[in-house]
């Protein structure tokens, strides 16, 4: 009897930490399609009622049977991405993501007062070859919204895939009906504290509640638009330049905002001003001396 109680006591303390711990969950958990078909899976974060404000995860997929096509973050609870998920590492079959939720996330409150899991990202793959495999979160952690950086290791999740030999048509479903550009935003020129090659940087950020933001492009004066990330470090010779920032969503809608770079006072400028000041003052003193002599 004592043994039974002891076991129950141990379980009662230990089990809740596993059963109630925050987790990342894929939906659906299984997918079976023919070759050439599309696979769309949502990655959800369930904080189980606790408040978390930062998440990072590594997602792996069997690149020998499926190919990453698009990742949408339009429905994501992540407000600011440190590392926005993309398929640039498609040949390795891995996607890294990390981001923060200022103020913390406890769950999406529904009309019944219940807290629901929140979407992190929606992944779309093309079923390329026949076979079986898993899309899985290989490592993931979240940080509690306590200001101390308390780490919680997230329970793993996976999608079991079965790509059949029969051909399926690609529906290419992603966001054909999204005609809304990303939200308006205000690019800022800020003093860039902490070193680097310059004292100034361009910072920008916007959101897209439809297909989700894909990337930013930056154009300086008459140059070409080039893919860039925030912060964009500015060299000191950019004073007076007009910088245009283009935000592009997954569906290809664009919004362009612009900002004029103010005049930068570099150490060299200040040194030159000081030299000129000294010369002007010396001349004035020399002139005054000469004036009073006569």
């Amino acid at each position, binding site marked *: 009897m*004592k043994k039974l109680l002891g076991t129950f006591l141990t379980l*009662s303390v230990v089990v809740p930490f596993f059963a109630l711990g925050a987790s990342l969950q894929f939906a659906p958990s299984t997918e079976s399609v023919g070759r050439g078909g599309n696979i769309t899976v949502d990655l959800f974060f369930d904080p189980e009622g606790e408040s978390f404000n*930062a998440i990072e995860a590594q997602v792996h997929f069997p690149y020998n049977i499926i190919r990453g096509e698009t990742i949408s973050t339009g429905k994501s609870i992540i407000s600011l991405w440190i590392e926005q998920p993309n398929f640039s590492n498609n040949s390795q079959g891995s996607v890294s993501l990390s981001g*923060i*939720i200022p103020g913390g996330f406890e769950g999406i409150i529904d*009309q019944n*007062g219940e807290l629901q899991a929140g*979407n992190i990202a929606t992944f779309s793959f093309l079923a390329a070859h026949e076979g079986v495999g898993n899309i899985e979160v290989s490592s993931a952690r979240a940080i509690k919204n306590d200001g101390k950086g308390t780490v919680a290791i997230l329970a793993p999740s996976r999608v079991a895939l079965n790509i059949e030999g029969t051909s399926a048509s690609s529906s290419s479903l992603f966001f054909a009906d999204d005609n809304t550009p990303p939200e308006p935003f205000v690019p800022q020129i800020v003093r860039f504290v*902490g*070193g680097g090659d310059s004292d100034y940087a361009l910072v920008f950020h916007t959101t897209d509640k439809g297909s989700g933001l894909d990337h930013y492009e930056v154009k300086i004066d008459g140059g070409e638009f080039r893919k860039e990330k925030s912060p964009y470090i500015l060299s000191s010779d950019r004073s007076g330049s007009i910088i245009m920032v283009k935000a592009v969503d997954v569906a290809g809608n664009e919004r362009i905002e612009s900002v004029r770079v103010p005049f930068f006072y570099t150490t060299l400028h200040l040194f030159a001003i000081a030299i000129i000041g000294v010369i002007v003052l010396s001349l004035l003193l020399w002139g005054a001396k000469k004036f009073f002599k006569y």
Partner: protein
Amino acid sequence: MSKGYLLGAFSLLALLTLYTLPAMAGNTATVSVSVVAPACNDGSDNDADLLVDYPTDLGCSSLIDNDESNAASSVECDDDADNDADGEIDFPADLGCDSLTDDSEAGEAVSIGGGGGGPPLARSVGDAQVFFEGIAPQGLIVGVLMDGVSAGTVVASKDGTFALNLSNLVSGVYLFSLYVMDAKGNIYAPVSLTVRLPANLSVYIRGIDLTQNKIRRPVNSCGKQGDLNNDCKIDLVDFSIASYWWQRPLSQEFNKLERQSLSGDGKVTLEDFSILAYYWTG
């Protein structure tokens, strides 16, 4: 009572406590969320003019207009005109309006985009809206951050209540953080709520209690707790500075800053971003 029963009772209590704690944690316990169809999208002839909803009823300016009536009104907050030229018309869209009977759209007590400083919030043009109602210490400023960006402020009324509305939003999932700032400039811990705003409907979030939270950002905390550019705010600029150093060796100067304002472990990690997110002011 035997030792066995005591152990059993204790284990049951432990089990109940641990299962209940997460549900009780946080600050959303008193909050209720309701989604209602505005008068111009409810399928009813609210003003008895035999015309129903937008665009049939010309008294409706959109599907989220909550007044079908098109009777001319001399009251600024109900006259279908942008009297203060701020791009918003009447209650509840113009946050300068406390009610439909308010005769001034000018918002001395309410502002959009200025609450947490930084650049003004560029407004989206969508068909979703949200109303916040709750209690806060009277006379103090209540601010709301939308996805980490300042979206508006209002002063808590004499009876210790506040009401705030954000309209013309694109439908989707939003994180709202409501906080109180006192006369000295101390910022209190926010109540953070994530809700889904559907198109053409009004979401009411009621029962927000801002009276219980403690000071999170004292007025004298400039340059600390994630304030990397020493401007007394934790916002996109601080996030951008930290992002630059993500997975890079730190410069000597930034290493000093990291020790002063972040976790102090000599590198920029997820824990540092969590500190930024915790003290975030927008």
